[in-house]
């Protein structure tokens, strides 16, 4: 995007008024790192929302409420009971990028390699959008296509609510890149809840090697109520992903990416299960 002007909003009301006035030309911006990947043909007016939209992480009942302008580095450094997004943040790009990019920017315009949509789908997070009225969308609704479609001029993302994991629940995360700071070739995030030695619930999400991040419900269905074991996880990952369409590229075939997805989902399920049973993961 080519910026033809910029405006700075001192507070939320001003940000909303400026964005309403600008209409589709207005571009809310906090870190601005994603503009590197956009076309220069599209002319926009940037609106600095850093002073208008909250940053920070606060415990709110059973969740963490994350301000959209929270830098990814803050997610990386934060520690709290049931908080798992530090493991996602530390694998994203480089420290300088993590110091600039925000969670709001990472999820409001989803690039094919984006990591946080995958993790938030697995965790069943909720996103709060505020305009003239406030509404809360769960991750399945928010990521059912480009989230930008959901925002009217003057509307802004105001919070990301991330459930805090409790005893008997676990999170697994795997991301394959060519270099440590490289874009994801395949990302897998998994939430599991244990019922004794069986899987009570599993939420499995994948991204990067598929057209758009989404749930792998085929894997989830195969695991529901099933006795947990590494063999069961590997089998569910293999069979549950078999019908999905994967993207090849960069010298990798669609079959290879599909195989990679099954391996990573299996690994993430194992990791999540160990955590759910009180292990270190």
């Amino acid at each position, binding site marked *: 995007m080519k910026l033809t*002007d910029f405006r700075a909003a001192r507070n939320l009301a001003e940000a909303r008024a400026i964005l309403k006035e600008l209409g589709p030309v207005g571009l809310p911006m906090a870190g*601005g790192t994603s503009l590197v990947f956009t076309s220069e043909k599209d002319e926009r007016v940037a609106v*600095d929302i850093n002073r208008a939209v909250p940053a920070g992480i606060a415990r709110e009942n059973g969740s963490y409420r994350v301000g959209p302008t929270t830098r990814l580095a803050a997610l990386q450094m934060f520690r709290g009971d049931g908080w798992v997004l530090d493991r996602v943040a*530390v694998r994203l790009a480089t*420290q*300088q990028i993590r110091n600039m990019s925000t969670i709001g920017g990472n999820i409001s315009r989803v690039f094919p390699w984006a990591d946080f949509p995958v993790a938030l789908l697995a965790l069943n997070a909720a996103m709060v959008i505020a305009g003239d009225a406030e509404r809360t969308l769960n991750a399945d609704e928010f990521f059912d296509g480009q989230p930008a479609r959901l925002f009217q001029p003057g509307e802004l993302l105001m919070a990301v609510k991330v459930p805090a994991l409790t005893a008997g629940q676990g999170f697994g995360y795997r991301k394959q890149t060519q270099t440590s*700071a490289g874009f994801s070739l395949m990302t897998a995030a998994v939430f599991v809840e244990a019922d004794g030695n069986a899987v009570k619930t599993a939420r499995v999400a994948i991204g990067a090697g598929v057209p758009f991040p989404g749930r792998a419900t085929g894997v989830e269905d195969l695991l529901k109520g099933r006795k947990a074991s590494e063999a069961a996880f590997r089998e569910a990952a293999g069979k549950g992903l078999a019908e999905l369409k994967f993207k090849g590229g960069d010298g990798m075939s669609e079959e290879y990416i599909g195989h990679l997805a099954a391996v990573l989902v299996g690994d993430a399920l194992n990791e999540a299960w160990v955590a759910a049973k009180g292990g270190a993961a």
Partner: protein
Amino acid sequence: MSRRSITFTINGEKKTFEIEPGEKLAKLLRRKGYVGVKEGCDEGTCGACTVIIDGHAVFSCILHAFLADGRDVRTIESIGDFDNPHPLQAALVEEGAVQCGYCIPGMIMSAEALMQEMSNPTDDDIRTRMDGNLCRCTGYEKIWAAVKKVAQTNKS
């Protein structure tokens, strides 16, 4: 496209700059004489352009200059010079960590931000916090050793 003014603190001094709306901070800083800010990849990959904003290391080559308005910016020019080197600069020389030297201003700014945030960084902290600074000469080990040396000195 109209030029607009922004004001921020640069190396302890409050200054006002005229900028183009899409201008990146690295271009502005170099245009104004802060040429210790190196341009390498120009796409947020190599780290040569690293500056510290409000205590955090960032890539100035992809940061829109207008986002620095009202903030505190530090460049390598605030760190030390030939006659009065910063401990990081002295340690890099002592460890033989500098070859061509193009990456070093960015390395120092990332290390300085790390030192400001953590008084006792582990090896893992150093490698994670400096993962955005590429060096094509040294193989990194001596650079990390220099940072570790300063961290240990600060601790004792």
